[in-house]
């Protein structure tokens, strides 16, 4: 039996007496007898904390994936997270505080978010960033919601180069929002935007246009063309950007994006089996009153001292209720604080260096991998930065399984992302044989070489 309850029997007795009750059950008098649980919940009885810890350690040991050298990406990357970042982001004042509703005792979190907003806005090349959303997918969904509200039109053209799971989420939530989601196929790795709506298999022109940068196959989309397309239809341009790639790529803002969304996991958050991650969201000043979620602004206190506070609250659910721009309340603040610390650690030079090292490793691995019999580029366009799609002669899932035995998480089989039949980004054959490989700054040349040797063996029929 374990718990963290302070009450002694004497205290319970005295408190009940104070309430004029004779036992704890009476506290639940308002609950109809008919509904009360006779027995318990049917769970095992409580166990001492060390027993539970041992159990969880046992489960952790059962994840062989944790021991593999990681070449998988698809939106989740194995980047360097130094001890100093873990130590600072793990400070219990950041971990165990609530949403900063009382700014006088929440300047720590508020200022950290303010710094985070500044860093993320600079990355995106836009003037405003919010205090975080759940993850890349939710950021994209919110971005599309904002975009549609801004353009006043419900049709959304989404490049099939956007992460398949994010597109899936768009589809799910469109059931509620009523948006018409039109997926635009890729040709040779980049989006083949139709020149007129009819060709898009939809009558109506887009109110929102969404592209990835780079897209999930690692290819660089022509964002100038996307901007032109958006202008042609008076649509909002939303870019789902890789924030690490932004270290060496022209920012989406410079390309003219109205909204930039992304996955912030690469900034200090572990792979974590997919969560908690960090939804990055940036937009132009003109859209700030449609911004989803919390926004921290600088102001002053009664004595004129610099202070920070959540602002433009009138957008939010607790005030606007059914008219709110979004329903988000709890977000991913701790990951935002973590990102602020990680980006503070990287600084101007470090972020560029990380992006550059990813690109070098990717180039090195690609050049060598394409020398392996039967391994070919999956896309016509050549990927840069840290994600590339290869076509393997045997099914990619087989390659992944075989290479695990050699100590590598070889990458992500496209079929696991888009399904066996493929989608607008890849066809069924590509889905089956496509292997999405990611190389981060943590991968050494020795690891990459060993990976190539293993790959050479793994792709044999």
């Amino acid at each position, binding site marked *: 039996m*374990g*718990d963290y*309850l302070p009450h002694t029997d004497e205290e319970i007795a005295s*408190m009940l007496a104070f*309430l004029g009750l004779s036992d704890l059950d009476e506290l639940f008098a*308002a609950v109809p007898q008919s*509904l009360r649980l006779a027995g318990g919940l049917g769970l*095992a*009885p409580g166990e001492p904390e060390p027993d539970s810890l041992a159990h*969880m350690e046992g489960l*952790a*040991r*059962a*994840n*062989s994936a944790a021991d593999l050298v990681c070449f998988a990406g698809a939106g989740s990357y194995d980047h360097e997270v130094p001890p100093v970042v873990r130590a600072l982001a*793990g400070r219990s*004042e950041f*971990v*165990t*505080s*609530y949403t900063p509703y*009382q700014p*006088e*005792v*929440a300047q*720590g979190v508020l200022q*950290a978010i303010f710094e985070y907003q500044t860093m993320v806005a600079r990355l995106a090349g836009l003037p405003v960033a919010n205090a975080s959303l759940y993850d890349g997918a*939710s950021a994209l969904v919110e971005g599309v919601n904002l975009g549609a509200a801004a353009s006043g039109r419900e049709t959304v053209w989404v490049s099939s180069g956007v992460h398949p*799971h994010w597109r899936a989420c768009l589809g*799910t939530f469109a*059931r*509620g929002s009523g948006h018409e989601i039109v997926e635009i196929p890729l040709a040779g790795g980049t989006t083949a935007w139709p020149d007129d709506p009819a060709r898009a298999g939809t009558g109506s022109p887009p109110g929102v246009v969404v592209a990835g940068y780079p897209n999930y196959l690692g290819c660089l989309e022509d964002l100038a063309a996307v901007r032109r397309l958006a202008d042609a239809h008076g649509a909002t341009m939303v870019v789902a950007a890789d924030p690490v790639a*932004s270290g*060496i*790529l*022209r*920012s989406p803002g410079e390309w003219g994006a109205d909204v930039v969304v992304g996955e912030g996991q690469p900034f200090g958050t572990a*792979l974590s*089996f*997919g*969560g908690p991650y960090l939804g990055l969201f940036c937009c132009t000043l003109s859209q700030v009153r449609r911004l989803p979620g919390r926004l921290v602004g*600088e102001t*002053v*206190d009664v004595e004129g001292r610099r*202070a920070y506070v959540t602002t433009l609250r009138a957008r939010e659910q607790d005030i606007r*209720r*059914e008219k709110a721009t979004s*329903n988000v*309340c709890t*977000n991913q603040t701790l990951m935002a604080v973590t990102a*602020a610390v990680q980006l*503070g*650690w*990287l*600084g*101007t030079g*470090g972020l560029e260096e990380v992006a550059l090292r990813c690109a*070098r490793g990717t180039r090195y691995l690609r050049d060598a991998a394409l020398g392996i019999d039967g391994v070919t580029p999956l896309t016509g366009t050549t990927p*840069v930065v840290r994600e590339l799609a290869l076509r393997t002669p045997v099914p990619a899932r087989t390659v992944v*399984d075989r290479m695990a035995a050699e100590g590598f998480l070889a990458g992500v089989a496209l079929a696991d992302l888009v399904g066996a039949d493929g989608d607008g980004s890849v066809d069924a054959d590509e889905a089956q044989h496509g292997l999405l490989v990611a190389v981060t700054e943590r991968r050494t040349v020795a690891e990459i070489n060993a990976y190539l040797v293993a790959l050479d063996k793994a792709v044999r029929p």
Partner: protein
Amino acid sequence: MGRAEEPTIFELSEPGRRSWQLSTTGVPEWGVEELVPAPHRRREPVELAEVSERDLVAHFTRLSHRQFSVDLGAYPLGSCTMKYNPKVCDTVAALPGLADVHPAAPASMTQGWLALLVELEEALCAVTGMAATTFQPAAGAAGELTGLLLMRAYHDAHGEQRRRVIIPDSAHGTNPASVSLGGYAVTTVPSDSRGCVDMQALRAVLDRDVAGIMLTNPNTLGLFEEDIEEIAGAVHEVGGLLYYDGANLNAILGVVRPGDMGFDIVHLNLHKTFATPHGGGGPGAGPVAVSSRLVDFLPGPRPVRLGQGGQGAHGTAPRYGWATPPRSIGRVHSWHGNALVLARALTYIRVHGDDGLRRVAERAVLNANWLRVRLSSIYDVPFDRACMHEVVLAASTLKRRYGLRALDVAKRLLEEGFHAPTVYFPLVVDEALMVEPTETESLQTLEALADALERIASEAGQEGGVEAARAAPRTTPVGRVDEARAARVLIPTFDARAGSGR
């Protein structure tokens, strides 16, 4: 310490200074121009702060000293369940075997994670009286929207186009916001004099256009909806579904289950009931549990037991895998939800177990009622009857008599080393002070909190008392903050300061 103004990290920056150190890789050092085609190449590096690791540490450590937290003191924030977050869960969340697992790794290599999720799903189903659970929703609001999409899918499957969802006027803001995003119109029902859903009013708005009703029970007034069975019957009668907002589940753990009350869909706030830390605003986790008739619509893929798990731990074939429900509404998260938060929750559930969870509810309700009775002669108690895990007080009398508002009480309390209660919510109560002590606060702490609230009220009656309260807090890192100015002169980033005259 903690009172001195802290410059932003940008003001600590010096060009050329650095913290970062990256491992030696031996990869050829091609230049960026050899790697990135010219038009895509960034001209200027992203300007970030350039500080030494030492200054980075000092900066964020000093910021942490300007932040209140559960670890520093009581946090009686109504509706937020700010209970103690066991440190063992931090250790669990940091286990490399859990934290270093890629979400796309094949099931055969992530059996531990799948087993963990299945075990947690079974526990949450037991707690709620539901048939299955999805872990994808990252927070309560995400759970709400997921639940509403499930509602829609259910009605669609029955060829029905219902347009309205009913919500009590005391509901949390995320409820109506989610309803809109779910494509439904909100119909509000008033609370009756006892603080519960007004049955008459409810019956009046019930018809076959109603997709369902969203309730939290105990409700946001901290009161148990005694007519819940009648409500359930009425809603089901018109073919509607009952949605349970689990934010207040802490009060009834092991006492009564949403499923037994007639609910069809339940979201849980693991960051409330199951003690996962709030992280300054997140992350949380908002799993959605549903009754058997909704299982087929759940988001996918879902972690499942494979075949006869009988194979046992030594069996070579994997015992857990992924499956997508036949009529799934689709994905609602990039991956599988906030996994590490889920691991924390399972740890918490295992430590407490069947008996411990029941104790949690008992102690939470005991603490809230002790405060209610202790304070009832000092503050208004709009609905003065036994409450559950939280009690809604009001400063309306104090305001009428002395001009002391709920806000002033809250700010004054900050000076006493406590966090403030939730104020002005629920909206149906004027000058509301919503107090949720949680079960992990000791009687001494409750006494100290009550004494502080009593002192604040009595000061109001004394010379200069109200002025003092209006001027509070003075011992905090900053004094009362000018929120209006923040909205008027928007400075959302350090770069925006320039134009702002700061």
